[in-house]
């Protein structure tokens, strides 16, 4: 089965295509693929289509078409705007609903019976980092940077990043990135086992496509069984993460942190 490319007109945040057994999910919402309500609704559409497409695919590649990077994370401007427009209890319900919806999508990608590859470049921060962490492999161009900047907002990562990074690399790496909020480059990320391949500038998608083509030579049932054997979904910790995020979200420090970020004219707002 071959799927036609999705509609690229209008304000679409993402599009996907299935060709030669490889699903390619492209992110293209300026300025840097911030994940808000528009992106989430489209991710849900993608998730529904993924269930159908995965019958005739062996790999999924997620990449960004924007020069600025893979994804700068959650849409903090939208989060702040909504928190200002409604009362506390309604805003909190909205946040929990958003988190539960995005967790459903990301858990589906994490457990998909395909081999999944994040082809990243530039900024891979916060929710963008968490999206990449759902993939089986991360292929990074040498200018990619990874970061959990949430603590400076008084929050924790909310899209499953902590349990997934802990599952893949262990508690010490989580503590380093989470508690310092520092960003690391692709070379360092490869040294600690996060990134499987580091490639030249602008080469991550090409390398991911080459890898995905190679995966098509393997017996699919075996590859799926191998993935299921080695990659568990940390369901309990993912639930706890949502609860903790919501608990922290109600604190005044979070509103202050969001306001500071949104209103910042600093030259380095991405630097914690």
């Amino acid at each position, binding site marked *: 089965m071959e799927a036609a490319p999705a509609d690229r007109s209008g304000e679409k945040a993402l599009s996907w295509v299935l060709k030669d057994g490889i699903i390619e999910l492209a992110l293209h919402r300026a300025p840097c693929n911030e994940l808000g309500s528009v992106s989430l609704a489209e991710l849900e559409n993608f998730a529904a289509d993924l269930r159908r497409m995965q019958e005739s695919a062996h790999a999924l590649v997620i990449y960004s078409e924007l020069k600025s990077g893979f994804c700068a994370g959650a849409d903090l401007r939208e989060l702040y705007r909504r928190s200002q427009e409604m009362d506390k209890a309604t805003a909190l319900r909205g946040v929990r609903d958003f988190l539960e919806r995005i967790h459903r999508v990301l858990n589906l990608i994490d457990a998909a019976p395909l081999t999944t590859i994040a082809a990243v470049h530039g900024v891979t921060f916060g929710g963008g980092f968490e999206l990449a962490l759902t993939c089986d492999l991360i292929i990074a161009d040498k200018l*990619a940077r990874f970061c959990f900047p949430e603590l400076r907002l008084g929050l924790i990562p909310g899209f499953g990043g902590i349990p997934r990074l802990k599952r893949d690399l262990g508690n010490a790496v989580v503590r380093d990135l989470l508690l310092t909020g520092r960003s690391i480059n692709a070379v360092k990320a490869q040294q600690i086992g996060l990134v499987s391949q580091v490639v030249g500038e602008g080469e991550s998608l090409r390398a991911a496509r080459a890898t995905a083509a190679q995966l098509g030579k393997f017996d699919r049932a075996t590859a799926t069984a191998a993935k299921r054997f080695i990659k568990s979904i940390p369901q309990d910790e993912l639930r706890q993460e949502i609860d903790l995020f919501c608990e922290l979200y109600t604190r005044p420090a979070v509103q202050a942190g969001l306001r500071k970020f949104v209103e910042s004219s600093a030259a380095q707002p991405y630097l*914690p």
Partner: protein
Amino acid sequence: MGEFAQELMSTTDQTLDEILNLAATHFKVPREKLHADDDFFKTLGIDSLQTLDLLTKLENHFRIELPDYELQGVSDFRTLAGKIQARL
């Protein structure tokens, strides 16, 4: 000035020179237009995302890790060179 101080100054100057060369090449700015005490945001005309590119280029070039919080408030090449020198 003692030998050690002179040596330290010359290595910092060398680091500074390498930073200026790298910035000129990456952001396609004539090398002669870049000076040690320039505000690199203004001189290079770069935004926060491009600043991260510069940081990555510098880390890769010097084979160091430079935590980005150490760069908070740093805006001139000379201070940047000092931060890098401290990690070499």
